């Protein structure tokens, strides 16, 4: 075979290669479609909430109360209508610490006399007029916009969700002690069941498909006169002395999700 023949063969092979390969590339590029096109953002997602009940118990504590903080035994029940919306009730059923004074109340108590005078209430009279939280019930709508996974220390992987909630808030305000009406400064404890508004944010960290640790932060807003004393200067204690107050609660609950079996998305 001559050199010319070799060159010819190479040329023909190159030409054939180009004609076979290049049109295939261009056509494939036109037809190319990402395998992720039209697929959901998260595939084979474990549906941890959709059509499931949750129930659990835990503790809730108030933060920054004027006179008495409360550590409460908490119960939470809920049903998730879809993966991102649900209804629930979070209830502080029992106040474990009815005598837990705030730092301010401790200082105030130290500054007040044991026996009242014409301008200053006594320690016991001041305490008897101050209310504290007995029970709290918060029915609410939960919206779950954030769901995902996290790793802690690169070892522990957990599913989690973050939700916001809103609904009415019902609180039972109670008193302790009796007011001596002979002392100065009229006082009437502001007690009973009061209705307000509750907004909150919370998260579930799923240990497995049916058990989760739940943390909640609520702002329960209701009208209150925590000191049970005159605010408006009318020298009488009336409902006009009650003011809108913000009451923060932090909760930690241990939740079980039912049914225990979960669906997996496509």
């Amino acid at each position, binding site marked *: 075979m001559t050199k010319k023949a070799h060159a010819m063969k190479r040329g023909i*092979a190159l030409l054939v290669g180009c004609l076979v390969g290049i049109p*295939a590339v261009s*056509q494939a590029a036109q037809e190319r479609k990402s395998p992720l096109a039209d697929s959901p953002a998260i595939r084979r997602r474990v549906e941890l909430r959709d059509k499931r009940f949750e129930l659990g118990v835990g503790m809730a504590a108030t933060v920054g109360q004027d006179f008495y903080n409360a550590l409460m035994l908490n119960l939470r029940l809920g049903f998730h209508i879809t993966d991102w919306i649900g209804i629930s009730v979070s209830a502080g059923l029992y106040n474990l610490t009815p005598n837990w004074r705030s730092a*301010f109340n401790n200082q105030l108590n130290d500054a007040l006399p044991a026996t009242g005078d014409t301008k200053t209430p006594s320690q016991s009279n001041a305490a008897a007029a101050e209310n504290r939280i007995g029970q709290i019930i918060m029915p609410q709508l939960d919206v779950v916009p954030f769901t*995902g996974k996290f790793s802690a220390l690169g070892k522990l992987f957990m599913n989690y969700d973050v939700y916001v909630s809103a609904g009415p808030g019902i609180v039972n305000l109670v008193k302790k002690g009796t007011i001596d009406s002979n002392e100065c400064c009229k006082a009437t404890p502001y007690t009973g069941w009061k209705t307000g508004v509750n907004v909150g944010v919370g998260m579930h960290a799923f240990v497995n498909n049916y058990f989760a640790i739940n943390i909640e932060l609520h702002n329960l807003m209701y009208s209150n006169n925590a000191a049970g*004393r005159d605010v408006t200067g009318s020298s009488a204690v009336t409902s006009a002395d009650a003011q809108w107050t913000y009451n*923060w609660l932090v909760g930690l609950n241990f939740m079980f999700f039912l049914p225990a079996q979960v669906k997996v998305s496509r």
Partner: protein
Amino acid sequence: MKRLAFGLLLVLANPGLVAAAEASAAGAGETADEKTSEAEAPAAPEAAEANKDELPDLSEEVKEAAAQKEEAVSEATAARRSWEDIVVVPRKGFLKRHRFELAPFSAISFNDTMIRHYSFGGDLTFYLTDVFSIAAEGQYFIKERSERESLVGFQFNRATTLNRFNYSASLVFGYVPGYGKFGLFNKYIVHWDVTVNAGIGVIWTETIPVIPDAKSFPAFSNLDIMPHLGISTRMFVTDWLALSIGLRDYMFEDKFEKRDRPPGQTAAQAKANGVSEFTQNLMVFVSAGLYLPTSFQYKTPR
């Protein structure tokens, strides 16, 4: 010679195979067959006729190449059929190592029922690694007395001894123990991490005299050593921007005006007779972190 021509053919056809693998196998096969048939036509021009004694017949090689191509297409398609080929966590969404973060922030205190402080300041952070950081923090405080504070005198015939915070500066060490991502409405993926930090600094505070008479009851100021602890979470918006929310607990021994301070005391005398108390200032922060350099490069392929 045959090997050379065949090899060349495969090399040229190969990109087509890869691309075609993502199209349908049948369609791609048909397309390749058509192209191959078309390729045969120009391979037999008059020049080839004239030199037919010297030219070998390449039709067999072309057919063989087409068959192998078809086989490769079907293999590639089979391999791509599985979703398992796509890794769940390809790479961390954001790298911080050897980058600076300038984060202006605003904060509010929430644990003192008598006085509230708003603060404005900034953190300048340098990331030694992707998880360890060192930062300088400075902030300026604005005070606001609460309604409860204003009622103490009226309801209990007592006055409160309060201090206001003016400025603070500190050195902060940070560690990122966890990171993750979440789906926003199951549609968008957002990366985030959580940072714990500890630091030490100083805070300038000033008394608010019970009797607001600057001549008889001048205020005095304190410079306190202030260790602090904190936790925050950060969401990465772009390669150079992150939004953060956090909680910090500043602890210091502060000196307050004595309850029965006599009039006429100088500020120094009042300070000498002041009452020291351990103070905790819990603050919630929001900040926007700007990263420099504004981009980063991965060092691993996936």
